[in-house]
């Protein structure tokens, strides 16, 4: 295992006009770790993922992947550096089958192939990994919410990433549907893939994260051990408001 972190950001920030969506975010993720990123709505979680993956260009700071400076690199350059992501609102390629959706990532991913048959076969393997092996021939529009999320995940895994950024892959899922996703994240970790999980579902964050980073108003509020962070009064205040935090303090 290398000592260079898979992902490091230095003072990363983005302003939209006068609004600072994200500012001065510095942290690093060592290889093989699962990092949970939490924060209330509008705290900059999705913007942060977009900054790392090149979908939004930062106005300040740097992004280093494996020690390589890939600040403001185009998204496909990031993908070729074996960094994959999912989108909060799933983005399937309609008009292609589920299998073809995944095959596109294999054709154009870091290991790219020109042989369609190989790509389709490898796509079936990825579909099996995420648990929708039987749905390869279906159009993505016919998938359930949970299966559409799995397809989104499969498209990211098609790149055979070293670093995977998951943008709320569990939002809106039922308890029974969340467990397989957690299991999958654990298995990815076991294979040495570094995972950044942006999530609102606290139970999920606690279950899989080695470390948690809390964003609040675009800045890092705190980071560290998941249980300690979630017990931090500042985090509770950011999520539930000043009055709730105070009442909780007096109650205990």
């Amino acid at each position, binding site marked *: 295992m290398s000592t260079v972190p898979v992902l490091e950001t230095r003072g990363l920030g983005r302003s939209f006009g006068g609004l600072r969506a994200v500012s001065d975010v510095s942290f690093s993720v060592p290889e093989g770790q699962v990092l949970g990123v939490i924060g209330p709505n509008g705290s900059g979680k999705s913007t942060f993922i977009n900054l790392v*993956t*090149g*979908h939004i260009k930062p106005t300040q700071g740097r992004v280093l992947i494996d020690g390589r400076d890939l600040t403001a690199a*185009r*998204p*496909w350059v990031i*993908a*070729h550096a074996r960094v*994959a*992501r999912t*989108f909060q609102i799933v*983005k*399937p*390629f*309609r*008009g*292609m089958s589920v299998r*073809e959706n995944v*095959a*596109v*990532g294999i*054709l*154009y*991913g*870091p290991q*790219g192939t*020109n042989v*369609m048959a190989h790509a389709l076969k490898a796509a079936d393997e990825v579909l099996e990994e995420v648990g929708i092996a039987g749905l390869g021939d279906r159009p993505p529009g016919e998938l359930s919410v949970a299966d559409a999320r799995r397809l989104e995940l499969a*498209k*990211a895994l*098609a*790149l055979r990433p070293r670093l995977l950024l998951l943008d709320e892959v569990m939002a809106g899922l039922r308890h029974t549907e969340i467990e397989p996703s957690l299991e999958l994240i654990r298995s990815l970790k076991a294979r040495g893939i570094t995972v950044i999980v942006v999530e609102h579902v606290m139970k999920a964050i606690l279950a899989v994260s080695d470390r948690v980073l809390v964003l609040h108003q675009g800045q890092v509020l705190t980071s560290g051990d998941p249980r300690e962070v979630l017990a931090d009064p500042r985090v509770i205040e950011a999520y539930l408001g000043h009055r709730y935090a105070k009442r909780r303090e007096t109650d205990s």
Partner: protein
Amino acid sequence: MTTSTQVPQQGVTGAMHRDQAMRLLPWMVGVLAVLGALALQSQLFLGQQRTVAAIFMFVSLAQAWNLIGGFTGYACFGQVVFFGIGGYFTAIAISHWHLSFWVSLLLSGVVAALFATLIGLPLLRLKGHYFAIATLGVAEGMREVVTNLPDLTGGGAGITIPTVGPDATTAYLGNEGFYVLFLALAALSVLVGGLVARSKFGYALRAIHQDEDAAAAVGINTTRMKVLAFALSGFITGLVGATYAFQQVTIFPQRLFDVNITVLMVIMVVIGGSGTVLGPLLGAVTLQFLSEFLRQNFTDLHIFILGAIIIVAVILLPQGAVNYVREARRTGEFSLLANVRKYRL
């Protein structure tokens, strides 16, 4: 070796043969169609040959537009600019530089492709209506540029390609020759469409069409792919424009940069089924044939009737005939009213 192990092997190879045959089928139908068109030529009067050649011309124009507008989802409303550039390049190359038509033809395609690359780099950053309007502007602007360079282009008075006498670098091809040449261009463009549809490149274009962010996120260099598609589309359109110019002998900016040519390409692709290979082919043949039939039988009302048919077709089949049939076969829902409901805004 026992028979019991051989039987399943035969089953597998049998299925493979059938699979291969199914994949080869469209190509074989294509070859037969070209041979059929060549056979048809001997049965046609010269005037009819010209009419059928125009159908071939629109088949290739519709296929070319489909590469950028259909597969890639960038509705180019200035496609005629490549047609005009191809035509004017050939006219200038033959009359000013004394190049042969065949050399000029090829160079016209290349020049149109280079122009597509040049305008594609900035314009393909725009999406939807913005791209449509910007390309429309380029085509309208180019017509004015060509009109205002009389020394080179003949200006509004037009330019005449020498087809007889000592200045003629290539003998005029005549109706028979242009029939074959336009047929070859149609075959080429359908072939390109078929190859793109089945290729890795085609998957990238369709991914870009559906969601550009998602396409970039899985490693597709979206800028390069869009520009390539635009250049390829421009190349074919340039070849067709060059051939059209030579056929017309004398060309004018108003005709070679006529926005109606773009509109026809768009309508043919949309009615046939955009993003498919068969769609633009069927759309171009049907519409051009229908237009000619109406012109000959309802001289006064022909535009009116054609317009009405197009409106009804677009309302009932907004996704195009080919896409409608494919969906209906998959879902078993053939009702046109249900189709309207599905696609209404």
